[in-house]
Structure formats: structure tokens, C-alpha cells
């Protein structure tokens, strides 16, 4: 990575890929960010000008803080913490769970998944205590690793 000051313009960060393509990011003094891509052997680069917000999103994708959103399912990878993906999922309460508490179902003990919130009649119960009893119509926010979530879907939500 080569860093160059371009007085009156901004700062240029430049990288040549192993294929010989060039990528440059220029932080303009105006606050916007220009992204240059120059294929090896090509004359004219492709350039786009991003707002700081757009640049942050692109940056997030590139550094691996990926958000894969699949219906109500959110998968987050936090590279600083671990390589494993953390899943956050919203489940509707199932029939077999109604009338039982989190402790009764022993969700964490059996699957490793933690219930982080319950949405009940438009209100949220954040970090519900273990004795919270599920009611019909509850939406449950659960967090855990991918395999744990699969186990939880099978053993807790699937059981009638």
C-alpha cells in the first residue's frame, strides 16, 4: 500500500494487485471519497465518487464485517472477535413453547442459543429473565452460532 499526499486534492492510497491491476482510494479534501480501478494494461480507469456513508458500507464489505440478511435472519461476522459467524434470528413462538418459561425449556443449556429479546404486543422485553413465560403471538430474538441456531430450531421451536 502506497500513501501519497496530493496537496489541494487529498490523500491517495494505492495498491497494485498480484494481477497487476491498480486500485486507488482518494480521500478528497471535500470529504468525499474517489475509488479508482485501473485494470492492468488499460488506459482509462473506472472511477466512482462516494459519500462517506457509501464508502463506509463498501469498506465494511471489504473488511469482512458482512451482513447477510435473509428474511428475518441476520448473520454478522465480527473479525475482531472470531472467525465464526454470529447469527441473529427472529422466530415466532411455536405452540409447544406457550406457557413454558425460558428456564423450563432450558434453551441455552440444550442448544447454546441465548434469547436476547421478546417482542410482545408491540413492546420489547430486552434480556428477558429465565423465568419469563412465553405467550401466544410472541416474537423471539435469538442469538448464537450457526450450528447452535440449527439445533435450537430443531429441538426448541420444532418440538410440539
Amino acid at each position, binding site marked *: 500500500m502506497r500513501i*501519497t*499526499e*496530493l*496537496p*489541494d*486534492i487529498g490523500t*491517495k492510497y*494505492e495498491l497494485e494487485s498480484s494481477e497487476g491491476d*491498480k486500485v*486507488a482510494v*482518494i480521500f478528497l479534501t471535500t470529504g468525499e471519497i*474517489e475509488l*479508482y480501478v*485501473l485494470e492492468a494494461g488499460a*488506459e*482509462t*480507469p473506472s*472511477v466512482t465518487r462516494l459519500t462517506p456513508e457509501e464508502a463506509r458500507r463498501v469498506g465494511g464489505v471489504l473488511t469482512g464485517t458482512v451482513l447477510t440478511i435473509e428474511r428475518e435472519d441476520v448473520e454478522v461476522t465480527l473479525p475482531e472477535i472470531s472467525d465464526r459467524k454470529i447469527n441473529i434470528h427472529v422466530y415466532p413462538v411455536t405452540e409447544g413453547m406457550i406457557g413454558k418459561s425460558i428456564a423450563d425449556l432450558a434453551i441455552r443449556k440444550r442448544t447454546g442459543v441465548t434469547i436476547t429479546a421478546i417482542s410482545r404486543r408491540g413492546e420489547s422485553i430486552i434480556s428477558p429473565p429465565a423465568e419469563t413465560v412465553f405467550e401466544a403471538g410472541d416474537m423471539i430474538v435469538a442469538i448464537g452460532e450457526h450450528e447452535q441456531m440449527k439445533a435450537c430450531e430443531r429441538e426448541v421451536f420444532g418440538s410440539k
Partner: protein
Amino acid sequence: MTFLLDLAIVTISCLVLGLVSKHLRQTAIPVYIIAGIFLGKSGFDLITSYDFVEWLGKIGVIFLLFYIGHEFHYKGLKEHGRLLAGCTDFIVNFFAGFSLGLLIGLTLIEAFILASAVYISSSAIVITTLIENKRLIHPEAETVVWLMVFEDIILVILLVVLTSIMVGNSSAIPISLATALLFIVLLLAIIGRLSNFISPLFERDDEIPILLTFALIFGFSAIAHHLGVSVELVAFFLGSALSGVESFKRPFGAIITFKDLFLTIFFFSFGMMLPIELSGLPSANFVIALLTLITLSILGKFVSGAIIGMRVHDSLEKGLIIGAYTTPRGEFSIVLLAVAIGTGVGVSELLSSLVIAYVIILSLIGSSIARYGDKIGKAMAGGINKLTTQAHRYR
């Protein structure tokens, strides 16, 4: 209330012409000057108080130099060949202008002014074109940007030399030079000492930050003027000193706005004050001198660009591209002439009308050359390569 009429004339004419030139994707500097020529002394003479408009224009020059001083980066100038490139640019183009000036019968000092105007490119046009043409990823674009930085340094040196050699008699030169240097050192020391005290004042949300900025600019300028030191130089060093004060970032945004406004008025006022008889202007000798000057200036930048390209990038083509991008002249050539006139020693009408016509034409031609700089550089390099291979074959 005549000042209202003057202000209306200046702003409306510049607004309309500015819009037109931006629409045509041309630089607006020449049209502001032309507006001044047409509405001012040598044109329709519509301005009531020339002094008033001229004062506003002078504020524009002070703000421009203040801005350049604030944005001035010298770190990084020593990297791979940048100094060499800067010196090549200066030597080739300054001496081209200087020798032509002597040839057409200007005095030594006037030839010096002409050479300065010929040497210095328009950073405003050059930088905008580089961004618009999407050149920033290429290494030669960096060289061009640093050439502009080097030109800023030379601009300051030229200002020092100009304002001290134009004090009248030669015995006063060392004294005026010493006064200027002493004043600048004193200014830097004062700002350095006071920075802890003024820094929190710049962070306030009321009118204090901008008032303080103006007070510093006008305060130091007034003292400088009283002592006979160049006001423009002082503005440059004040800007440079304040760039070290972290909290100054906020009022600086407003200063850029003021600079843009007053600099436009400066271009207008410069055209407005020009003592040329529009009908008597195009005498044959004048036109020949002007055309030679323009041709030489364009050639000069291509020659210096080619040398820089071969030495720094090992490529004639990149060098010719550098040449094409540095061709536009503009604001600094006019500023240097204005400063020279401002010393009151007297600059011949020949020189001022020559420089004015030169800047108007070369800012337009130059920005077109810069816009197609890549194609022009490529075509020229191809042509030169063909010629040299043919020369080898026939030998």
C-alpha cells in the same frame, strides 16, 4: 448609495458570464477580466467608484495568498525527483519568458515580471482538470500536483524579490528585504506564542471565530503596509501559521467562500483598471509579440514536461502529458502583475496589456490543451518516436 450600483454591476456581470463559461466547461477567469475591461475605464465606464471595486479586489488577492499559505504542504517535496521536476519547470519557462521580454525591449524588471507570469501555471485550472479527467491514479498526475506545490514556493520567492527590487533605488533593496524577513519571523513567532490563547476562540459558535480571523488578516496586513512590506507575503505566512492551529479548520471554510467571491471581483477590477485603448490595441508589433509569447509559453511547458518525464518517469509520453496539463496560466500571473503594479514604481502599458491578453488567451487555450492532455501527449510522443526512427533509417 452609488456603491450598491457598482456592486450590482460587478456581481451580476460576473454571475452571468461565470454561468455561461461554466456551462461551456471553460475556466471563468478570462471572462471576469473581460467583463471588467468592457464595463470599466477603457470600456463603457459604468463604474462610479473605481477605488471601491479595486479595494474589494485587493482583499481577494490577500485571501488567495492566505488560502495558499494555509494549504501549503512542503513535506513530501523531497520524494523521488519532485525537486528536480520543479527546478526544471522553473528554469525552462522562466528563462523563456525572460529572454523574450528583453527581446521585445522591456526593462530588466519588466522582463522579470513577464517571466514570472510565463512560468507560473494556474493551479486552479490544472487541479480541476486532473480530477475531471480521472488522472489521479497515474503517477504523472502526482508529479503535476507537486509541480503546483513547487510553483507556490517560487511564487513566494518571486513576490519577495519583486516587492524588494521595486522599492525605487537599489540601495533600499537590502533594507526592504530585511524588514520583510524580520516581519515574517515576528509574525510566525507571535502566532506560535498566541496559539494556546486563540485556539479556543476559533471553536466558538458565534461570530468571534470569523471576526478573529479577519482581525488577524487585516491587522497584520495593515502593519505590513505601513512598514512597506508586501501585504500578499504576510497573508501567505499568516495562513501558513494558522494552519498549525488545529481549531482553525472551522472558520477556514468561511474564508474559502470569501476568497472565491473577492477573487472574482479582483479579476473584474483588474480588467476594469486596465488603461488600454481597445481600438488602438492591436498594433502589428503587439500582436506579433503576443503570439510569440503564447507559442513560446506552450512550447516551454512541453519541453520542461518532456525533460521531467524522461528523468522522473522514464517516459517521453508521460512527460508530454505533464507538459499539456501544466500549460494553463491564470490567477497567479495576474496576481504577480497586480502586485508589481501595486508597488507604484510604474509598469509600462505595453507589459500590462501584454500580460492581460496573454492570460486571457492562454487560460482558454491552456485549459483545452490540458483537457485533451492525454491524447495530445500520446500523439506527440508517437510523432516524435516516428521521426526519430525515420531519422535513424535515413542515416
